[in-house]
């Protein structure tokens, strides 16, 4: 997705636990954690299952579709890269698999994002190792 002449977003800090998640976006995959011992799904990615504390955790691609559970349109932010994007919508999105993800909702005017709206994931590449998931209205 084009961001026009907007200054680049702040980069997330990449750690050994999150590297695959951020890189997954470069290939169009929204990865969520799944425990091979207890089957619990989780987000964000962790090396240890939050249910049974097993280390047998695998990153699996989510379908990338979900529903907006809560939304806020941000009108104030002093960080230049984000100030340039004001006003912007932040959504709390419930993935169809269950876990919730907090992320930008783009692709429509921010005030048009409503609770209950169906969305699907898209990605904004920020570097050679990071593409962040964002959500756009489902067709």
């Amino acid at each position, binding site marked *: 997705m084009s961001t026009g002449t907007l200054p680049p*977003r*702040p*980069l*997330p*800090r*990449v*750690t050994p*636990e*999150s590297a695959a998640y951020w890189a997954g976006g470069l290939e169009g995959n929204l990865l*969520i*954690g799944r425990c091979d011992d207890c089957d619990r*799904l*989780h*987000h*964000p990615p*962790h090396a240890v299952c*939050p249910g049974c504390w097993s280390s047998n955790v695998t990153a699996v691609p989510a379908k990338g579709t979900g529903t907006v*559970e*809560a*939304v*806020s*349109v*941000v*009108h*104030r*932010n*002093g*960080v*230049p*890269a*984000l100030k340039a*994007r004001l*006003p*912007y919508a*932040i959504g*709390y999105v419930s*993935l169809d698999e*269950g*876990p*919730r*993800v*907090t*992320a*930008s909702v783009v692709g429509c005017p921010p005030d048009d994002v409503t*609770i*209950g709206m169906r969305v699907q994931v898209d990605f904004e590449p*920020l570097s050679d190792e990071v593409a*962040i998931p*964002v959500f756009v209205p489902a067709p």
Partner: protein
Amino acid sequence: MTRDAAIVAAYEHPAPRKAPDYTPLRFIGESARGALDQCGLRPSDIDGIATTGETMAPVSIAEYLDIHPRWIDSTGIGGSSFLSHIMHARDAIRQGHARAVLIVYGSTARSSAAAFGSQVRDQVVVDPMAVDDAEAYLHPYGVVLASQYALVASRHMHQYGTTRAQLAEIAVACRTHAGLNPNALYRDPITIDEVLEAPPIATPLHRLDCCVITDGGGAVIVADTDLLSDVKGHGVAILGGAEAVGHTEMGQRDLVDTAAAGSGPRAFGEAGIRHDDVDLLMVYDSFTITVMTVLEGLGFCKPGEGGPYVEGGRLLLDGDLPLNPDGGALSNTHPGRRGLFLAIEATRQLRGEGGPRQVADATVAVCHGVGGYLGHRHSGVTLVLGGMA
């Protein structure tokens, strides 16, 4: 004989809400002195210290005040921390680990222009011991503190039909009370319409739904009740206290569920009180929605009924449940981490020192602090205080 502890001093620094000549340590030192003067203790009587700040904060303060505490608490769980310190100090004194604990705070949040409510950090300093990985998943999107609370408000409104006008009742109540507090930052009355029409910060929260940012400091002393016969004034009993954590549950959490539902019932149970025993409620009112979810979590009304509950002036001084008589963080003072000021105002009220904003016949006060991000990781601490008159 069983030891017990009480709040024997609760001092709020009288400096203006913007005090560029102060440092946090000056606020801390002068607040500590003010608290000693209230109760008649001397610096050498203080054998315990509690505060929150950077990792070594209690040690730095001990050096600044040249004390050698034998008991230290630096529980750092955001703005609710000081309520934990008071509870922990009581328990430590009961166990004989200390006799007089200084709980102290100072901040120049306003003079330092720390816009922590509507700004995320541009540069992330990597601390090799840091365990907080949340920032990485939030800051590329511009998720600010206000927007996390706003997500909760958005969900509450959708799920329960809560209106912005109902949230505004909370801001109006706090402003009404601030009008009776000569030290409050904002004292001019506001209307519900003015709250609705204020500029948006992170929808559905607008400017008057959000707390102020000020400079300030304060100190509380919790001491062995055996010291009371030696000190001036009278104490406030720490009847009950409890802590809880709320977080994302790794993607499983409903936004409207908050930590208050965990800490509240346990604190009420320890204190042996019921809701209709409560004469006043001090809530860390970072945002209007914070108060509404805390009212529900503590059980003053059922989940989802906070909107109708706050209508009709219930939270005013002469209402059923007076909220934040000092004007709260929404209108009075908020030097970050407001928890200490909840206990200070509750103590003033229970001592009958509220002046024009005194709640009539106040004998039981409940304080509840929310630390961190309500819509994300947060702590909840409930403290029940009682008059000893």
